């Protein structure tokens, strides 16, 4: 049973057909990869799924429920979490504040109560704060809780972002290039982290990725987009060796020797 | 034919609006309003040109645009005692340009990266400082000022007298609007200014000094402000502290926004529109029951109406 389904999503911006009839699905506890060259429409797909634009046509279903007409904040309430290419955090706030703000939907008291300092609001705030601290510790960010986000190094920002999106208590996680800016070793560790998170938090994950070894290692299923359309889908191995995919990345039918060299390089990095 | 219409859609809308307005006014018998509107509207339009110029280059609404003009008036007044009128006029423009230069250097540049709200507040500060100093220096609120052209009733259009000074104003506006329009679309300098406002890093990389461009733009805008003041105000015969800001800045702002804030011909159309609406609001019988200054309310409603329907202004490009 798919927890998230995109059905024939299409959208046009001015003269550009950014997505055309793109369909994909995430199964329960699956990790799905979305690959494709730059400009293929991957982030646009995420934007459609999370509700930042309405599609020209097509539907989005979350756990069988049609959410195509729901605004962004309502989808967050249904367990859909997402990260952004240029790091979606409140940079003017501290790490802890971000983690607490992200628990907005779990702040179970009235706004008026909060303004007047009701007992419920104070108690709930304490709970949110300790949850934030625990989450930060779980991701090795405990020392940074009182640090302002702006000014943290890029790799740390990415970790903070993952902690923050986890604070929204998601069931489905959409990650936009989580390994960007990371070297091969860091990306490897990211893969471990994602597998652990899936297990510990019971998540289903879709990730836009460029880092092929990471995709091959942890993705159960992969979709490849190019020019706004779905090119190929299947297991990681299948997609990666597909001629169309390679052509899309390299722009032409590649030399088999080059392909072989690439494969050997990949296995070196993987330590096979 | 259709594709041509779509390409120049904003200009077509503007033209259609103007035609519709003229027809309405002629039909309802408000002929005088049309002429008065055109006349005062040109004043707003000229000031609006400066506003649009700054907005296109710095992305901020320049609250001090009116005071560039008032300062020029003070300079004109003082210089007129010592040198021939035309020299005094030039001197006044130089003073205005200097004020623009100093404003850019001292206020705008340090705040280059700041949120635009802060920059807007800063230009308001410049305006207020100028006004404070003017109040301090001017021992009375009404000082006489001479005009360049003496003839008051050169032409009479539809029952309204048009003075030489007004004709000069309208002519200047039209010429400037055309020149600036060409400047921004055809000359390298003009394109560089637009480029610098959108992509400052890229502009620097191609070897253009964004700082020098910024200075140039502000001086130019200040000159426009000064020019507007020295043509318009002497027609009334007297001036005082803050006169440009109190009487012309806000209608000019409305004119620029109605026109789309990015369009120079828009500033002109907006100015005329504001002038006409003001004049009709003041005299037309349907607005009789509005308490206080009728044109204020009517302008607000028009502004709100236009922006709600077309948030980018009448001739602005959609975002």
């Amino acid at each position, binding site marked *: 049973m798919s927890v998230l389904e995109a059905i024939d999503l299409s959208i046009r911006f001015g003269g550009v057909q950014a997505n055309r009839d793109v369909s994909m699905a995430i199964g329960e506890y699956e990790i799905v990869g979305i690959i494709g060259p730059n400009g293929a429409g991957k982030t646009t797909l995420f934007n459609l799924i999370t509700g930042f634009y309405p599609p020209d046509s097509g539907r989005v279903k979350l756990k069988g429920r049609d959410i195509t007409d729901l*605004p*962004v*904040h309502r989808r*967050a*309430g249904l367990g859909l979490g*997402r990260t*952004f290419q240029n790091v*979606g*955090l*409140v*940079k*003017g*706030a501290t790490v802890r504040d971000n983690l607490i*703000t*992200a628990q*907005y939907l779990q702040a179970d008291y009235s706004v008026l109560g*909060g*303004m*007047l300092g009701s007992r419920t609001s104070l108690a709930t*705030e304490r709970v949110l704060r300790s949850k934030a601290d625990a989450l*930060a510790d779980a*991701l*090795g960010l*405990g020392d940074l809780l009182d640090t302002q986000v*702006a000014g943290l190094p890029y790799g740390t920002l990415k970790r903070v972002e993952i902690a923050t999106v986890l604070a*929204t208590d998601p069931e489905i996680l959409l990650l936009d290039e989580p390994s960007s800016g990371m070297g091969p070793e860091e990306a490897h560790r990211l893969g471990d982290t994602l597998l*652990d998170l899936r297990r510990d938090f019971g998540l289903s994950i879709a990730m836009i990725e460029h880092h092929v070894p990471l995709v091959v290692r942890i993705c159960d299923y992969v979709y490849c987009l190019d020019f706004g359309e779905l090119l190929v889908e299947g297991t990681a191995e299948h997609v990666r060796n597909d001629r169309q995919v390679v052509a899309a990345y390299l722009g032409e039918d590649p030399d088999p020797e080059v392909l072989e060299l690439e494969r050997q390089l990949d296995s070196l990095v993987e330590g096979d | 034919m259709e594709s041509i219409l779509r390409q120049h859609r904003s200009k077509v809308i503007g033209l259609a609006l103007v035609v519709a307005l003229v027809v309405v006014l002629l039909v309802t018998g408000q002929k005088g309003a049309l002429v008065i509107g055109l006349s005062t509207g040109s004043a707003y339009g000229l000031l609006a040109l400066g506003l649009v110029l700054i907005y296109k280059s710095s*992305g901020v*609404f320049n609250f001090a645009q009116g005071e560039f003009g008032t300062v020029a008036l003070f300079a004109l007044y003082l210089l007129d005692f010592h040198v021939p009128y035309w020299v005094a006029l030039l001197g006044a423009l130089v003073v205005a340009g200097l004020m623009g230069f100093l404003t850019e250097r*001292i206020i705008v540049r340090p705040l280059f*990266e700041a*949120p*635009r*709200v*802060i920059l807007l*507040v*800063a230009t*308001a*500060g*410049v305006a*207020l400082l100028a006004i*404070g*100093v003017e*109040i*301090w*220096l001017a021992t009375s609120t009404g000082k006489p000022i001479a005009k360049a052209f003496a003839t008051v009733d050169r032409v009479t259009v539809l029952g309204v007298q048009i003075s030489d000074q007004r004709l000069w104003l309208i002519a200047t506006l039209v010429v400037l609007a055309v020149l600036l329009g060409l400047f921004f679309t055809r000359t390298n300098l003009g394109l560089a200014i637009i480029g610098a406002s959108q992509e400052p890093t890229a502009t620097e990389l191609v070897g253009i000094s964004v700082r020098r461009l910024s200075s140039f733009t502000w001086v130019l805008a200040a000159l426009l402000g000064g020019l507007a003041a020295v043509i318009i105000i002497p027609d009334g015969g007297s001036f005082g502290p803050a006169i440009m800001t109190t009487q012309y800045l*806000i209608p000019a702002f*409305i004119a620029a*926004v109605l026109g789309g804030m990015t369009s120079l011909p828009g500033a002109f159309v907006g100015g005329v529109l504001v002038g006409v609406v003001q004049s009709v609001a003041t005299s037309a019988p349907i607005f009789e029951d509005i*308490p206080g*200054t009728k044109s*204020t309310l009517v*302008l*607000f409603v028009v*502004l*709100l109406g236009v*922006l*709600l329907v077309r*948030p*980018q202004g009448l001739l602005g490009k959609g975002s």
Partner: protein
Amino acid sequence: MTVTREDTSAVGRKPPPARFRPSPIGWALRGVIWLGVAYLVLVFPLSRPAGDLVSYTTAVCYGIVALSLNVLLGYVGQISLGHQAFVGLGAFTSAYMVTEQGQSFWVGVLAAAAIGGGQALVLGGVSLRIRGLYFALITLSYGLVAEQNIFQIQELTGGGAGQPAPKPELFNTEWRYYYLCLAFLALVLLVDWRMMRSKAGRSLLALRENPRVAATFGINVRMATLFAFVVSGVFAGLAGALIAHNDTFVSPDVWNFNLALVFIIMTVVGGLRSRAGLVIGGAFFALMPYLIEKIPGFTDLLAKIPGPQDLTPEIAPLVIGPLLLLLTLIQFPGGIGQQLRPITRWLGGRKFDLHDRGLKEVQITDVRA
């Protein structure tokens, strides 16, 4: 960079540093300062003449206005160039309710707060559709409409002489009224403080900087924006009512665009998002003519500055105010609040840190239309 395996247990974190506790001398010093402030605010006014108390009360009310404007300008990043309309309509509403409708002062204040919130709600709705610079113009125009149309309605304004606004029975001396307004200021400060420490405040700060991310946290950005406008409007309406009964009458002339700019200046110079700074900023600008007169020798100093006429207490603020504003914006963007931060933090029981300037201001979404 060394490679270490991410430790997913909670063992990894260093124990948090022990909370700083001031020494006994530290407590004593802080206590003295607190007592000094309390004396200045609570005891000193008792010995002053009634006329001075009216000025002090105005200062307190301006503090509330600054807090109100800060909700829009500082927390949400929205500009309000017509804020005098919210305050003024609050003033007229309260005066009207008491004089024309025979209601008590308390009903007047409540009505003023409600009207303030209502106006702000409508403008907030407009802000959802019209953005940035264009919205700034709408607020400006609305302020003008208030000054030149709404406040010219005869029934509301009681003709040209203004609408009377008597003080409430229990607080009908200048001294008692001053303490009443102080109590209201304390209430506003408390509500503002609690709001910012709860989910409402956090959602405002998030949406100010990054509305898309705020939405993914589950925050309804539209509702949060409207909420901020209402809070701002309620505070402003309240301040207006208090000002009305302080002056004992309300006239249309003062609610002009110049006042709108004064409000903006005092809020920015006071320091956005700093409660202490805002109250001080509001008070300072309200008291400027008073201070210039009362500080011995200052008027003579000003008169010495060469010019065609003297820099009198009426004219001097017109020059000093904008100068302070420009200085704040260019050199000290956090205003008085930021400069005082080491002291306010120290007074709150923390270590004195001269370099603590609070969180860095981050480049936020432009007001570009």
